[in-house]
């Protein structure tokens, strides 16, 4: 049975090696914070971190994560300094509407800020363009990322 390191814990996953991480998380482990939006890495709703880098878990098989660290939304806004700042900014700016895409948005935003202390609008565009929001919360996403960067400075 494959083992995945998820949020710092080695977890047995009763699923085939070719199962996408997304479905191992959601269906096998019941961790439903990571969302299914398109299944083709076109929308970003499934974003998790693999060794700190954002990946689309809908197309990444669990075999690709062997021996690596997966971080999900369930931990990032509580255990991580950057994640907490992002969460606070998201709440302050009332970013979410339906909220379904926001786990993915936050994972992408957190990865951006972990790598860049003062992202420009162009940096934000590049990091966030893969995350679709049909409710159109992008204005507030941008403001929240700038605000989180400020509080982390």
């Amino acid at each position, binding site marked *: 049975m494959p083992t995945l390191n998820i949020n710092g814990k080695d977890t047995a996953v009763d699923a085939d090696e070719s199962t996408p991480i997304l479905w191992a998380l959601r269906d096998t482990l019941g961790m439903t914070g990571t*969302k299914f939006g398109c299944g083709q890495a076109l929308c970003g709703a499934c974003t998790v971190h693999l060794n700190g880098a954002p990946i689309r878990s809908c197309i990444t098989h669990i075999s690709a994560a062997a021996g690596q660290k997966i971080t999900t939304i369930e931990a990032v806004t509580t255990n991580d300094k950057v994640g907490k700042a992002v969460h606070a900014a998201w709440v302050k700016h009332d970013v979410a509407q339906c909220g379904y895409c926001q786990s993915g948005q936050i994972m992408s935003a957190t990865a951006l800020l972990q790598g860049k202390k003062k992202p420009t609008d162009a940096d934000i565009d590049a990091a966030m363009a893969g995350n679709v929001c049909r409710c*159109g*919360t992008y204005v507030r996403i941008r403001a929240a990322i700038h605000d989180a960067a400020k509080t982390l400075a």
Partner: protein
Amino acid sequence: MHFDAQTARAHMPKGLVALMNQAQGAINTESDAASHEGVARRTFLKVSAASGFALGAFPLVASAQGAGAAAAGLKPFEQPSAFVRIDADGTVTVTINRLDFGQGVQTGLPMILAEELDADWSKVRSVHGDANQAYADPMMGMHLTGGSNSIKNSYTQYRELGARTRAMLVSAAAAQWGVDASALRTSNGFVVGPGGKKLGYGALAEAAMKQPVPEKVTLKDPKQFRLIGKPTGRLDAKAKSSGQQDYGIDVRLPGMLTAVVARPPVFGAKLKSMDDSAAKAIKGVKAVLRVPTDRGGEGVAIVADGYWPAKQGRDALKVEWDTSAVGKPDTTALLAQYRELATKPGNVAMQADMAPLAGAAHKISAEFVFPYLAHAPMEPLNCTVKLDGDKAELWMGTQMPGLDAMAAAKTLGLQPQNVKVNTQMAGGGFGRRAIPTSDYVVEACGVAKAARTAGITAPVRTLWSREDAIKGGYYRPMHVHRAEIGFDAQGKILAWDHTIVGQSITKGSPFEAFMVKNGIDATAVEGMKEPYNVPMKLSVHHPDVNVPVLWWRSVGSTHTAYAMETLIDEVARTTKQDPVAYRMALMGDKHPRHKAALQLAVAQSGYGKKKLAADRAWGVAVHESFESVVAYVVEASVKDGTPKLHSITAGVHCNLVVNPKSVEAQVQGAALMGLSMCLPGGAITLKDGVVEQSNFGDFAVPRITDMPQVTVHIVPSADPPKGMGEPGLPPLAPAFANAIAQLTGKTPRELPFKLA
């Protein structure tokens, strides 16, 4: 979707009303997660585990005069017991009678109730109501989230609920202190008595429950509002920003299985043959079952112990379809057919004398093409069904739980009162989750039924992939408009001959009776002509096409606003008049709300004052839909044939605003959805009966890189609130198009824009 509440109620088929009432079921005053054993899920925020006291659990009507007439009683939607629960620690849980799918009613409705209740806002929580009759729209008599109706139709209702609850708390305190209720006041979760003594709502809740429920209540003077009108953060913000918010897709029941359905590629087609040997061999697949699909079609459900094996099972399925008996719509052929129809006389919605067209000094002859559009909410459609003998329980995010419960009962052959619908938070809807045929619910029930026949007793969740949703129909209908306008050198419009061709959304649905008159579907023509005083003849054709169609955020205005606002603009430009001044004059001395919204957008944008870069132009549009008015002044440019939107300034008139933050968010979001109609890839097309698009790669939706600056300005008003779910959408595309016309001399007549 547009519903005139009184007209709707009066025209709703009596059979439908009776069936809906039957479906509503017994009073259930509790609607919280704790009552579902074994369901480890989080609903809106963490509702206090301590049981609260539902006020007025034994409702008595306090009739002060006791005039002897039969007690009128309060209707279910007026009973505080169904809407307010106060825990001993003072937590106030408000049940909302709508689906929140992003628009913010789970904060707005509690704000209204909490205002009159004088609750401590920091202690207020929010939960979804179920299919109980109490949670029907009080004007419509049915459960409905749509038509931008939630705040509009429930404003007075929720105020009265708050006031009733407050009165009962005051009565309880009065009894406890032995004073007259008139000596007491309330403040921020406390009843305050003589000498400043206080009792918290939590301490009073149990006693308040035993008070008679007053029928008549006094509402606050709006000057005393402390909550309504203040920008207020969403109650679900924390949960939605940390992965803690669950949606329909996240429901997990013990032993639950997941089904995906292989649906015919042409709507309503039948199954010819299938080879399921490879599908059945996939590890995790429990059953491969023939099931009915929408519109008389047939499909195959693969039931497995998770989405991934179910999907793999479907991928391994070999299936042949029989499409011989169904129409195979083709966009190219439809366009030709619609263009021809547009030249023929149709059903006349508006009549005017068209003789002046012939001799007019100026003429515009225009043809507009609008494609099918998919809603594409981020959460794919899903419905979980649990069958238990002669009972069933369903979990999904739905805009019409009552109708869905009825459809489920019919499909399952159960008594309506034995079907329980648990409304879940939905990841968007935009109209797709308000489905008169309850298509995905009926299908999920059919899957559960087939599973049970095959010996499966576990609950079954039917989950759609993105491809299923993009190809699954229920689109904003394709439309062609044709306009011939004659006007003089001063821009006075002498005759306007307009024809609309497009499928009727409500034909064949329970809404047909009050939406379709004289062969004209009201949802196809809403937004035409008003607010302009022009002599318009409007004709309509509703062809029958084998494509299921549905209301898509702002419905008819998605195309009528485009035609109206680009044509009006063109008349202004042709006669060398400022587009804003021209519109103001054309509205005569009426339409103060339109004028106020337009003037606000103009003033805030710098239009006419700020000098734009040489490659940029202003674009203007104003449109009323669902009784609110939005005006946009935009800045755009065109580079190498590619139009780009740089900024949007909005002027909004929606009467009194409950939560300005909600309105701002809705306008930003609706504007972007309006933009989605303009950008490349924003269309659904069909070839030989098959939808050509499949995912976000070929049905493009806007990304952060497409979002311009947006500033939202609201015209102050004290009149009872109107809605803002949809009105921000219609004027965006025409405003953008008008800027393009300023730059290129030509108005784009087709969406998405094809400039090259």
